């Protein structure tokens, strides 16, 4: 039993330690899980951010792609325009060998264009750099994502292993709990068995107590019997004393009788013999009586001892009864012992009965002692033997009862210990059951958490895979973009090279043009003064020296005046033309009405002379260089007046409106842009349609200088001004059916 207890204790201690260590492990695992979940949540957030950044980056890339496309389209358009301008330049260079004033404009345009291209190239280079950086950042971001995914997979694997371990530990604990449950059931069963035995022992003890009571009664009866025996013995001693007295009297009587016998003779001898025999019998009786007295004293002593023993047995039995009530197990052994006691008691009872019989016999024998001491001796000897046996048996009983007392104390202690153990086991089982419930709950939660984790990991892997695909696509797109950027870079370098070449040429041309224009301007300006003086002196002579001149002289002076006038016109027009090409271009929103009114005021005399009407209708504001546009209007209106039909009054209609390029039937106009469309229509002499281009050339005239004065520069200036406004001008006419000039200037 003690070994079993030790084993159970050891098992409990180990189980508790395991539970404690598992609790610690569980707490650590839960803490780790919380950390892992936090990390996962953080990584999810990071992924979300990264995905958002990637999204933004993709949008930016897409936007840059669009911008590049636009830029490329613009470059394409710019290149087409450049090519177109180059063609135009060549045409103009052919047209105008002397003054490449158009080139000057184109040079400026090229310079601007080149600057724009330069800026565009710098922007492209910047965008390429940005893309490179973005691509590098994306690569780093992808590496980080891949690393995070690996870490997550490792963590997930570790968690799976940890969960398996937990599941295994839970199974082990459940097994242990089941074993403990079985052990407890065994203990409970054993306790029940012990309780049954204790109950049985209680019953047996009650029987023993009852039997002891019975023995006490018997012992009390034996004491009374012994007192009676003592009384009888006293009576016997008195009788023996009386018999001694009687014998002395008899001896006296016998002496008397001897005396008498001596006197009598024969009879006396017989009496002496009879007395000797009596004396011998009396001596024998006295010896026996003394022996009986001793025997009685022993009996009395033995009875007293028995009473004491019986009283002690009663106390011992009472103690046994009390102890038996508390101690309930060992019942079977006790039962056996009790049975043995019962047997012993029965023997005792039997012996007591025997003693009673013997005591009765002794009473009889004592009564008979007076007559039969022989029987008494035998009986006394037998009693002595029986008493010795009784004493021995009592000693045995005492030993047994001592042993039983010790055994009962041990049993009681063991019962208490077992109950304590059972109570502790019950608590331990409850704790185990609670811990098992908690563990099962925890295991269930962990299972759910693991499923979630697995699901989240799957989702993350999917996302990572999608991101990977997206990144590959991005990388591919980046490569494509880089290729395209590289191609564009090459194209740009070629363009830049071509632009440089063009710029060089443009610069050279520009320098040449400037020199030319400066020359033109200075020469024209400086030519004016001597010419004016010639004119003035001629005018003075022809007015003041008129009388001194011959008719031929007068005519020649008139010819000088005319030539000088023509020269002045030429110089003026050349100056105007060169000024148009060299002056700064300042665009302003201007009301065309104002300009036309100014021009009308300037041409007031001619208008009235020609009886002309100028209608300005539907005029809009236009973004123009005001003084140039005034020149343009002046040239066109004065042209219309100059080439008016002499047979009818001149009628000039000027209109302007904003129209879309697509609605205007001219392939040089961009369909998407708005244009200010200005029309100057007259009812003059017009010109043949095939001259519609030629009339815009410098020094191009359709009439002799005699019929229509002019230098042939006026419309060239007009065209130049329209080009300065980035517009185009067309002339349509038929001979004698008037002419229409259409001007298209970009609006805004």
């Amino acid at each position, binding site marked *: 039993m003690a070994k079993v207890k030790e084993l159970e204790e050891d098992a409990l201690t180990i189980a508790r330690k395991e539970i404690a260590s598992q609790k610690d492990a569980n707490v650590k695992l839960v803490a780790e899980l919380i950390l892992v979940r936090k990390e996962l949540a953080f990584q999810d957030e990071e992924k979300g951010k990264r995905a958002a950044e990637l999204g933004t980056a993709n949008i930016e890339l897409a936007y840059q792609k669009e911008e590049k496309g636009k830029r490329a389209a613009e470059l394409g358009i710019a290149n087409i325009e450049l090519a177109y301008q180059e063609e135009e330049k060549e045409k103009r260079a052919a047209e105008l060998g002397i003054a490449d004033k158009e080139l000057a404009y184109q040079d400026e345009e090229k310079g601007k264009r080149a600057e724009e291209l330069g800026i565009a190239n710098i922007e492209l280079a910047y965008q390429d750099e940005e893309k490179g950086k973005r691509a590098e950042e994306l690569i780093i971001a992808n590496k980080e994502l891949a690393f995070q995914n690996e870490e997550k997979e490792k963590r997930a694997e570790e968690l799976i292993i940890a969960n398996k371990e937990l599941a295994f530990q839970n199974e082990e604990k459940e097994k242990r709990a089941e074993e403990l449950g079985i052990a407890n059931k065994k203990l409970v069963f054993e306790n029940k068995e012990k309780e049954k035995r204790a109950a049985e022992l209680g019953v047996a003890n009650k029987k023993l107590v009852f039997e002891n009571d019975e023995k006490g009664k018997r012992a009390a009866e034996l004491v009374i019997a012994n007192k009676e025996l003592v009384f009888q013995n006293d009576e016997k001693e008195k009788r023996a004393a009386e018999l001694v007295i009687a014998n002395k009297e008899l001896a006296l009587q016998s002496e008397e009788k001897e005396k008498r016998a001596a006197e009598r003779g024969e009879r006396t001898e017989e009496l002496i013999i009879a007395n000797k025999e009596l004396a011998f019998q009396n001596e024998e009786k006295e010896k026996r009586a003394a022996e009986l007295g001793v025997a009685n004293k022993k009996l009395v002593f033995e009875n007293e001892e028995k009473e004491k023993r019986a009283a002690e047995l009663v106390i011992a039995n009472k103690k046994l009864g009390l102890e038996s009530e508390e101690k309930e197990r060992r019942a079977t052994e006790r039962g056996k012992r009790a049975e043995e006691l019962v047997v012993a008691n029965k023997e005792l009872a039997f012996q007591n009965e025997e003693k009673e019989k013997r005591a009765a016999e002794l009473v009889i024998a004592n009564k008979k002692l007076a007559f039969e001491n022989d029987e008494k001796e035998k009986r006394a000897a037998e009693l002595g033997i029986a008493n010795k046996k009784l004493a021995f048996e009592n000693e045995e009983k005492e030993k047994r009862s001592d042993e039983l007392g010790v055994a009962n104390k041990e049993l009681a202690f063991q019962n208490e210990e077992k109950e304590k153990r059972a109570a502790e086991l019950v608590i331990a089982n409850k704790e185990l059951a609670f811990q098992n419930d908690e563990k099962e709950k925890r295991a269930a939660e962990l299972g759910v958490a693991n499923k979630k984790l697995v699901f989240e990991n799957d989702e993350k892997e999917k996302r990572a895979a999608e991101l990977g695909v997206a990144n590959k696509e991005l990388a591919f797109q980046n490569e494509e973009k880089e290729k395209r950027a590289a191609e564009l870079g090459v194209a740009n370098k070629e363009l830049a090279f071509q632009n440089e070449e063009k710029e060089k040429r443009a610069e050279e041309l520009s320098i040449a043009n400037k020199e030319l224009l400066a020359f033109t301007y200075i020469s024209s300006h400086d030519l004016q003064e001597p010419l004016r003086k010639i004119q003035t002196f001629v*005018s003075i002579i022809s007015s003041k020296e008129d009388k001194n001149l011959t008719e031929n002289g007068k005519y020649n002076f008139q010819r000088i005046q005319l030539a000088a006038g023509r020269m002045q016109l030429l110089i003026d027009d050349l100056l105007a033309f060169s000024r148009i090409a060299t002056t700064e271009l300042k665009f302003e929103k201007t009301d065309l009405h104002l300009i036309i009114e100014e021009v009308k005021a300037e041409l007031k005399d001619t208008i009235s002379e020609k009886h002309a009407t100028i209608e300005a209708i539907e005029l809009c504001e236009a973004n123009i260089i005001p003084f140039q546009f005034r020149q343009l209007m002046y040239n066109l209106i004065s042209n219309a007046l100059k080439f008016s039909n002499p047979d009818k009054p001149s009628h000039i209609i000027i209109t302007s409106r904003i129209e879309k390029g697509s609605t205007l039937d001219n392939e040089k106009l961009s369909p998407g842009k708005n244009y200010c469309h200005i029309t100057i229509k007259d009812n003059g002499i017009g010109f043949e349609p095939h001259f519609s281009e030629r009339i815009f050339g410098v020094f191009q005239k359709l009439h002799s200088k005699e019929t229509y004065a002019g230098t042939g520069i006026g419309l060239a200036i007009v065209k130049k001004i329209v080009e300065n406004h980035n517009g185009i001008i067309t002339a349509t006419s038929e001979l004698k059916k008037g002419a229409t000039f259409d001007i298209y200037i970009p609006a805004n």
Partner: protein
Amino acid sequence: MRYIFLADDDADDCTFFEEVLQDLPVQAQLTIVNDGVELMKTLDETVFEPPPPHVIFLDLNMPRKNGFECLDEIRQNPRFKEIPVVIFSTSDNNETVDKTYNQGANHYIRKPGSHAALKKVIATVLDLELWKQPTKTPRSKFLLML
């Protein structure tokens, strides 16, 4: 009596001007200076005797100090800023006309190519009696056309 200043380095033009002025039915005293430095010096010295000019005809292209500089100085100086100035130049390009208009000149004449035209334009200027009109000339009437 009209006191008229002509600042012009061209001797012929000065002669033409002088002749035309003599032909005009106006009592005028012409003071001719041949460059800007001389003009400013004369203006400074002749504020009281002779009296300040009724009008200055100012050529632009002159040595030492050109017409633009003179115009600036005249308009900056409180003593001269009210004196009418008529630009008298060979060229009539827009920039120059605009510039002198903004500088505060009263009118702009392009030197004409005939005696008659010159006479007409000087007569026109004198008829305007600019010294009586302190108001600024509108841009559209700044350039005197013949």
